[in-house]
């Protein structure tokens, strides 16, 4: 549904987006992850036709945004960064304007507006100027605007920024509910969001794609993948730590809370070896837990210039 082909954008000497390619099929929620300034927003601006790429293009439902911008834009719902909306208008007028531009009028426009108003829960602020709305409501009005024409491709730049935890949860439910018949891209710097709603994540830094996979696949790259949390009654002395560290397949041992965390080398399972050792030595184990891996680890390792060493 959405195909990004070798997008490049340079601002003078700065290359903000550097040869980014990927495709998003129907049913996928792609999390666009990256530190500030990574090039997420710039990529989205090129996909939606706000910025002309230095090279490359985006194909939306078969229409090239560069050569067939009008039909391409008809298939896109877009929430720009910061959810801009005309401050003097009320959400009611604003959505009415968007509905008209999207080609709906009369009964059809009203029906579509009330559908998104219900879905995004903005009924109570419909007649209040947008400039007086809280950040959360403003963001929701922006999302409502993007959903009005039930687009095939949805591009949301930081859709949950400024929302409180309940609103974040609601917004994620809305996104998850729309997933089956749309191709969705959301940009975020919240890793929990990627785990909550995304079927796939792309990590980008300095304009380049550094990782692309399901959240679970990415988490496997973490040094926490298959690491074991171990708590021993009476505490663990240096001797215990040395014995654990000497096990084959163990990369290192660290203190975690009031127990230990044993990292695996290369992500291979080490829990069996640890359990055997504990039985052999007669340690009374009060807690044993295998970790799946952490996205924030992977994110930090990939996106910082000096990766944190694998061993603790």
């Amino acid at each position: 549904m959405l195909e990004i082909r070798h997008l490049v954008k340079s601002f003078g000497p700065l290359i903000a987006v550097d040869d980014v390619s990927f495709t998003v099929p129907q049913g996928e929620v792609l999390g666009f992850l990256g530190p500030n300034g990574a090039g997420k927003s710039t990529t989205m601006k090129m996909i939606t036709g706000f910025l002309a790429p230095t090279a490359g293009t985006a194909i939306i439902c078969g229409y090239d945004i560069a050569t067939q911008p009008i039909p391409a834009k008809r298939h896109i719902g877009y929430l720009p960064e910061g959810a801009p909306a005309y401050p003097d208008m009320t959400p009611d007028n604003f959505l009415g304007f968007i509905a008209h531009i999207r080609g709906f009028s009369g009964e059809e426009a009203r029906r579509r507006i009330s559908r998104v108003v219900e879905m995004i829960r903005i009924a109570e602020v419909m007649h209040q100027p947008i400039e007086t709305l809280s950040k959360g409501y403003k963001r929701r009005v922006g999302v409502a605007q993007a959903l009005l024409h039930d687009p095939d491709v949805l591009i949301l730049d930081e859709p949950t920024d400024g929302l409180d935890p309940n609103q974040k949860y609601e917004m994620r439910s809305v996104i998850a509910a729309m997933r089956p018949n749309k191709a969705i891209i959301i940009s975020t710097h919240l890793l929990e969001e990627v785990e909550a709603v995304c079927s796939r994540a792309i990590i980008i830094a300095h304009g380049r794609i550094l990782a692309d996979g399901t959240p679970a696949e990415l988490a496997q790259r973490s040094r926490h993948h298959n690491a074991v949390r171990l708590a021993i009654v009476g505490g663990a002395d240096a001797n215990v730590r040395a014995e654990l560290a000497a096990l084959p397949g163990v990369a290192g041992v660290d203190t975690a809370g009031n127990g230990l965390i044993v990292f695996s080398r290369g992500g291979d399972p080490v829990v069996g070896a640890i359990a055997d050792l504990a039985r052999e030595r007669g340690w009374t184990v009060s807690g044993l837990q295998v970790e799946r891996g952490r996205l924030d680890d992977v994110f930090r390792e990939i996106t910082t210039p000096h990766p944190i060493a694998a061993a603790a």
Partner: protein
Amino acid sequence: MRNVLTIFRRELAAYFATPLAYVFIVIFLVMAGILTFFVGNFFERGQADLQPFFTFHPWLYIVLIPALAMRLWAEERRSGTIELFLTLPIRMTEAVAGKFLAAWCFAGIALILTFPFWLTVNFLGHPDNGVILASYIASWLMAGAFLAVGACVSAVTKNQVIAFVVTAALVFVFTVAGSPIVLGVFQGWAPEWLLHGVAQASFLVLFSAIPRGVIDLRDVVYFLSIIVAFLAANAILIDLEKAE
């Protein structure tokens, strides 16, 4: 066409959503009144026409029209809504036309609200209402030309003050192009055709010719060409900004 109308309606409503519309209209009417009655010696002339009223329009417009035009694009840039606006399925020509027509229509509303001046001369005597109508149309066309210049300037900045100042300076130059001071600069070295062209291009010269008789079709064409040229530049500048 439908999109032009939708954009036009939103933009026109935007004028009335802030005090700008009311402040503009009040200042326009008060200034027009002061200039006409005190500076223009409306009563002392003892003639039933609106000549003193229209004479001051170019000068009023230099100050007031940039205030109408400055927000057209600069405001969208400042608030970030331009990103929303330009990613909607509309053509650039529709966007530019819708915005311009809203501003032009607003200027027309302000002009229509000067009808008490017209009532006054008709009450005091028997003016040539044909000339008055022609003058109104000419004034509105000139306002349109000023607005097109202003829209174009507004397209390249997000600072409305800069948009105001630059537009005011540009339309001032256009207005006084035919004055002896400006022509003096060209005299002596410029070829005759250029001198003539500059004099002819002056809004003031064109405009002051109109109230004396009927509208010259060439003048109408001239104002409309200015409008089209600056709106085309407006669209091109917005497009260039995208590629940056």
